[in-house]
């Protein structure tokens, strides 16, 4: 029997049938189109179809100069927008060998950790939503809203902050910044027990995630998974530990690694990572060095011809920037090795042989951001 869906043809026998999940499906959190081959309720085959939000950021970057293309990357993983900008700035600074003031390094790191907190809080809320629990979403947004307000005060916008510039940050922090960050950290620590009561210890949530969507260590390595997905399968891959950038070399924190490899393990890794992010913020918030927040960089940046590479840890894994310069003011070629692109590959081994209902739990635990895959 032949089923023609979209432009693709999948062969199937009479017992199996094919359904499309997405591109407009609430659990895909974006325009991801999956084609599933089902045997009853069991998933036999899975194929992703991409390109619904492909904007060609890599091609667009080739026609923008070095100070402009940075801000296109905010639109890749929009929940880690600041960290994407930071990666680009670090790559450019490496290329032109610019010194970044200590104050800027610390501010960038603080902002990156706040971004990670906000991103994980949104993930936590939407995970509950995907499993049929509506209230966690409001609890998560209570704290997330405060972080976004801090961003708005200092940078002028809430999500795509465009705060990083080569050589430092755009402007100094708001006078209220330190007080408000301390306030949010205190509130979040006080409220953390609610997160456990609402989801972690919830028997319905546990039965939907424990033992579901197993990813072995070998498979995670072979699929080049990074971030919480890989750390839940027992791989040590935190770039903040392996190749510290900005101010990560002066803080102590734990890399959270578990070996269970199921959806609940990935959930726990992210929850613990939020606590570690708070640790990092607490170590830095009282020690922001005085001085300049930005070094002066020439108006037109022309890195010497050659290749440059920089990797950072976003909320979802390793973002690598491969920059090829030909000595002009525009990048000759730029490649973004985005974490979600590789993590998408893990969807198939996780869900094969499982029930179709588990797919929603698996996608929630992968925490995919589709614009980051499509670019």
């Amino acid at each position, binding site marked *: 029997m032949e089923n023609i869906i979209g*432009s693709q043809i999948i062969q199937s026998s009479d017992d199996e049938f094919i359904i499309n999940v997405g591109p407009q499906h609430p659990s895909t959190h974006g325009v991801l189109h999956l084609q599933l081959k089902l045997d009853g309720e069991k998933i036999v085959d899975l*194929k992703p179809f*991409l*390109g619904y939000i*492909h904007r*060609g950021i*890599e*091609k667009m970057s080739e*026609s923008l100069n070095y100070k402009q293309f940075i801000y296109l990357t905010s639109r890749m993983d929009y929940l880690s927008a600041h960290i994407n900008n930071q990666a680009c700035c670090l790559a450019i600074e490496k290329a032109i060998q610019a010194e970044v003031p200590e104050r800027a390094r610390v501010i960038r790191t603080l902002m990156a950790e706040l971004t990670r907190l906000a991103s994980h809080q949104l993930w936590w809320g939407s995970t509950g939503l995907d499993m049929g629990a509506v209230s966690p979403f409001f609890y998560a947004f209570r704290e997330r809203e405060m972080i976004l307000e801090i961003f708005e005060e200092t940078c002028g916008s809430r999500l795509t902050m465009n705060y990083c510039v080569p050589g430092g940050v755009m402007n100094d922090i708001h006078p209220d910044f330190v007080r408000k960050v301390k306030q949010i950290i205190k509130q979040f620590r006080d409220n953390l027990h609610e997160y456990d009561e609402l989801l972690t210890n919830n028997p319905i949530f546990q039965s939907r995630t424990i033992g579901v969507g197993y990813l072995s260590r070998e*498979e995670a*390595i*072979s*699929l*080049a998974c990074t971030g919480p997905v890989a750390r839940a399968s027992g*791989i*040590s*891959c935190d770039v903040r530990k*392996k*190749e510290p950038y900005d101010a990560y070399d002066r803080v102590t924190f734990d890399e959270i690694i578990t070996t269970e490899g199921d959806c609940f393990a990935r959930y726990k890794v992210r929850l613990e990572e939020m606590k570690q992010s708070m640790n990092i913020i607490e170590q830095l918030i009282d020690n922001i060095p005085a001085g300049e927040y930005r070094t002066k960089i020439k108006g037109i940046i022309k890195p010497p011809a*050659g*290749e*440059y*590479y920089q990797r950072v840890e976003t909320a979802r894994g*390793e973002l*690598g920037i*491969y*920059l*090829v310069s030909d000595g002009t003011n525009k990048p*000759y*070629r730029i*490649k973004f*090795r985005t974490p979600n*692109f*590789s993590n*998408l*590959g893990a969807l198939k081994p996780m869900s094969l042989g499982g029930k179709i209902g588990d797919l929603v739990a698996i996608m929630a635990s992968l925490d995919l951001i589709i614009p980051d895959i*499509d670019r």
Partner: protein
Amino acid sequence: MQQQPEAIITQIFPDLPLGRWAQLVAITVKQDDLYTVCTQLRQHPSLDFDMLVCLTAVDRTTHLEVIYHLRSTSRNHDLIVKTELNEAQPELPSMVPLWKSAELFEMEIYDMFGIVFKGHPDLRRLFMPEDWEGYPLRKSYNANEVADNYLKSHQLLINQ
């Protein structure tokens, strides 16, 4: 911190030129030897490159450069494997048997540069529509021209 695999690589592949690509150790491999070299890199116990972190290509206008970024999670070292290709009929062996992450990476490179990976299980255009002409990330692809033609053919241009 990162270790450097230079010594072992010069020992196993004495003929290969060792260089640097973005501060990472890099080797340049001929198109025909690529699969055998990669198999050795994957299987040699003291190299153990078990992760293909990234696969990308650069259009140098005279030729295409394909870059494999390998990493060993056990030995904690990185390596860049570089190969050069003719633009007219670019073909490479697929690395899917060695690293599963190659499946998506190779689809993207095929879509954007038109490099055909022989032995790939499902080589199709990943991002662009099936009937799209041209390969967007090649330097000969003029994005403005493509956009103009599209607008003209759909009568969407304001100042005709």
